[in-house]
């Protein structure tokens, strides 16, 4: 049987990669893809703990289902915003969308 810490290490590595992608990438779509990586890492974490600590209680899997729903909603709205920004400013580089910067 695979020990729990290996699953958690995979999830932590994915989360760290997502953090790097969000902070360092310029393109807004790439930032959104890194956010999806982080959400997947969280899901992996939830399901690993459900399986290894409380497989009888189904609330672990239910949490993951709700994370799926929220991630889908957020991806849809974020991508619609990016398309709208591209229409008005002709760029999707996150640094160039700086009208609210002081």
């Amino acid at each position: 049987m695979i020990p729990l810490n290996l699953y958690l290490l995979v999830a932590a590595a994915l989360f760290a990669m997502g953090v790097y992608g969000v902070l360092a990438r310029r393109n807004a779509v790439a930032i959104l893809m890194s956010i999806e990586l982080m959400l997947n890492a969280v899901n992996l974490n939830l399901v690993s703990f459900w399986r290894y600590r409380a497989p009888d209680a189904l609330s672990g899997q239910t949490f993951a289902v709700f994370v799926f729903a929220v991630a889908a909603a957020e991806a849809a709205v974020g991508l619609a915003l990016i398309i709208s920004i591209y229409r008005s400013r002709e760029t999707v580089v996150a640094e160039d969308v700086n009208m609210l910067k002081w």
Partner: protein
Amino acid sequence: MQITPVTVTFAIMSIFALGGGLGVVVNRNLVHAALFLVLSLFGIAGLFILLEAPFLAAVQILVYVGAISVLITITIMVTRRIMGIRESVNRQWPVAAVVAVLAFATLGFVIVSQFAGETPVSDVPPESVAQLGAQLVSSQAFLLPFELASVLLLAALIGAIVVARD
């Protein structure tokens, strides 16, 4: 840890997930990054199957790979512009790398010290998918969050259409 089929499958799926994740964050070509994201999501679906959550694996492939990745690819193609040789990372990428490494080091230290060598407490009860469905609509369990998630999805749907319209 001996070499069993479970161990080999875990190694392959982890390589897919982590390799895909690395491809997403360092690739200069956005379409390649989207395809690496698909690879990573398939790896995570495989890990869900290893964790005996088959319903979540199916939902992962349907929703993430089938819907969200397609949406991301469509957005990449719609927002294309004539790019020269531009950088894919901004000016603060060394700080970002340090932050990411620190985050992984902190999490890894906690994981290795607290959860070393843990095995599953018990087996998954049979019919867990049917029970999951029953719990999602049972007023004793998760009915209210289920309905709220439906309202959230409706709001996101209407919002996305209104924002992305001409």
